[in-house]
């Protein structure tokens, strides 16, 4: 029987594979050991650099002169820049100015120029953040280019850097991009626009809303919760027309804060899309007037649970709706059982937590 002897092709092949696997295993152990040693060495070195630069940054923040400043080796640029960004983001006012001055003095502007073109994304991101923090106007064109990058993280960081360098120029560019950049997470956009002065954003926001696509408009509308826009009802009026797409109507209703939008909202309480009806009920809870109580009570019998719930919460929250009238409805055995159940829940939510 030949097949089971080592001279067989199959066995030779298997033996050869086994040896290759053994060599690979030894190599892998060596690689893991090497990776561990390198990471430890790097961490130690980073700690040393941090220990050197921390007191320097502290003195600079306090406005004190640093007697001797060490040179930054090229391999330490990212560590020092990272530390500088760390301090910068927690400071305001004069301390920031002092840190900026120190950055130029120790040549961090050159470090950012080098890292800006680095192929490692994390290092590039560091440079972009630093450019914004330093307020480097020379970097404007490159940042605008980068804000169009396919990578959402880099493009957003570039947007924020632009906003820090020149909000007047940056806001219209970013709002235009927001129209089509649906890969930009709203939570981060919110974080960026939170930093922008309201007076700068408001006029551009009005303009952007009038020119954006429905999905872009819905995103821009979310910013209304961050930026106070005077007479926003005028802005929202065309967006609350019943013919608008449901997602846009829902976004506009969420942004509705002024009683003058009431007439538009009333037109939407019987919209065919339940999401719109639910948002209309919520909006009435904020801006409703005494006559709306009846309408909201009717909405308690809506086929959609969320519409019933929002209507119940709206009734509960409206200051002019007496609690006794809600309790009457809740205990009325002839009333819609759905309405009674949801009202009972909405009232209990407040009771239990009191």
């Amino acid at each position: 029987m030949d097949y089971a002897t080592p001279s067989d092709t199959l066995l030779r092949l298997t033996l050869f594979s086994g040896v290759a696997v053994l060599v690979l295993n030894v190599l892998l152990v060596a690689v893991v050991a090497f990776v561990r040693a390198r990471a430890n060495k790097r961490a130690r070195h980073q700690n040393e650099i941090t220990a050197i630069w921390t007191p320097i940054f502290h003195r600079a923040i306090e406005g004190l002169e640093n007697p001797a400043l060490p040179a930054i080796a090229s391999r330490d640029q990212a560590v020092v820049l990272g530390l500088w960004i760390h301090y910068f983001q927690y400071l305001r006012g004069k301390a920031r100015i002092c840190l900026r001055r120190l950055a130029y003095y120790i040549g961090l502007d050159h470090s950012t120029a080098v890292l800006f073109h680095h192929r490692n994304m994390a290092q590039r991101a560091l440079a972009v953040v630093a450019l914004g923090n330093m307020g480097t106007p020379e970097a404007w064109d490159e940042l605008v280019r980068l804000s169009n990058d396919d990578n959402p993280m880099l493009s957003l960081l570039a947007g924020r850097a632009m906003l820090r360098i020149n909000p007047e120029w940056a806001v219209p560019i970013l709002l235009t991009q927001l129209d089509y950049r649906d890969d930009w997470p709203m939570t981060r956009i919110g974080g960026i626009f939170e930093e922008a002065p309201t007076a700068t954003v408001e006029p551009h926001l009005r303009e952007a809303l009038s020119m954006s696509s429905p999905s872009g408009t819905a995103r821009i509308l979310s910013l209304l919760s961050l930026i106070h826009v005077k007479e926003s009802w005028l802005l929202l009026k065309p967006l609350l027309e019943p013919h608008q797409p449901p997602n846009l109507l829902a976004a506009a209703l969420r942004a509705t804060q002024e009683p003058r939008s009431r007439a538009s909202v009333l037109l939407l309480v019987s919209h065919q899309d339940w999401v719109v009806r639910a948002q209309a009920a919520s909006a009435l809870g904020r801006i409703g007037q005494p006559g709306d109580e009846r309408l909201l009570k009717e909405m308690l019998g809506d086929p959609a649970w969320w519409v019933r719930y929002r209507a119940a919460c709206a009734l509960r929250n409206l200051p002019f709706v007496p609690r006794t009238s809600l309790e009457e409805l809740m205990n009325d055995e002839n009333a819609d059982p759905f309405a009674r159940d949801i009202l009972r829940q909405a009232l209990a939510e407040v009771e239990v937590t009191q």
Partner: protein
Amino acid sequence: MSVWSMLIEEGLGSLQWFFLIYFILLNGGYIALNIFSMVVLQRYLERHSMDNLPKGHSGFDPPISILVPAYNEEATIVASVRSMLQLEYPKHEVIVINDGSRDDTLARLIEEFSLHPFPEAYWRRLPSQEVRGIYLSTRHPNLRVIDKANGGKADALNAGINAARYPLFCAVDADSILQRDSLTRVVQPFLDDRQTIVSGGTVRLANGCKVRNGFIDEIGLPDNMLARFQIVEYLRAFLFGRLGWTPMNAVLIISGAFGLFRKEAVVEVGGYRTDTVGEDMDLILRLHQHYRLQGRPYRINYIPDPICWTEAPESLRVLKSQRMRWQRGLLESLASSWRLLFHPRTGAVGWFAFPFFLIFEAIGPLIEVTGYVFFVGGFLLGKVSLDAFQIFLFVAVGLGILLSSMALLLEELSFRLYPRQNQLAKLFFAAIIENFGYRQLNSLWRFIALMRWLSGSRQRWGNMTRSASWQHDKKPT
């Protein structure tokens, strides 16, 4: 030589080739997944190294409902819920579903969190066993408890989905230990890509770790060898078993211990199936099937961050029961979603991931056990030479160690959760030793589960005995 013996020898020769080819395909597949994972991991770490810049505006983070099914969890439920209430996230609610516990789970919750009966207008979108009552905490308005008749984990989750207020829900095991930032991390795919419907993360083993106030305080390794083998196994399963499928949008399993779902997507496919023991995998497969066959864009994402810790069984009896249950769950899930297989519209799921799981994970134990029997039997009967036997053993063990070493390398390149040199050495040692008995035992248990499933016998639930050693502030090794 008679015709029969010639035929037998011919057959044995062919079998050798069959086992070898299967072996090459299996290990080649895993090595390829490993290489994909390295690329994905590198990109992921680079991409997320600047996650906090710019900081998000918390008002725009989607709120999350955490669903915690609990059955006889009186020993751990209070600590678990307390830690879930402390998670760092702008807006989340915790819904504990007491699935007809026979112990004092509900009483402990009522007492500890000042629960009061709450007249909720319960919306029964998904079927579940009767809901006996809903309670709201007066101290934590974001905590509710649903008390229902026993119907199993899937049934409890369906009841929880019905009560969930928020668009995303996170299914968590009652004994899972989460990181403070678990939700912030696992929600990231939903923020980055609006097509995301599911996101899961890496589950790690808490055996040997020190836990304080419901959170991992110090990471350590257990003394128990069985638990240590499972740590290596989990590294393999999560770091490349799942990460490797992510770029193809072909992840088939999101752990039931921790996963974040878009509620409407799950409701659309009818929620969790209650007639399977693998409800987590079954749901993912049905979501793939639903979206792929309808040609709708979606993403099921997996993030490599360690976000959830769980306790591994430390006795063979419990481990056997767990592994047989997992195998049965896998078989049931694959069988119920067979339409995915080689369907022209199912892409990488139907053409790569599903066949891979079918051949190597579902039927694999049959081939592996037959292979062991063939070689050991052949050797004992003198049909396989000692050299051949030794060479096959040498390669099998070598490849087993190689895959584990690659997982350790991935861990070293990414999160380095075991920072001490002796921890690394112990893991390497476990990666070698597990090939001598542990893996074979696993194959045998899975083989038995496969046979039982084929014969149509019903799965009996084994009790998961948890030592919860980490609850006693045990020092890590």
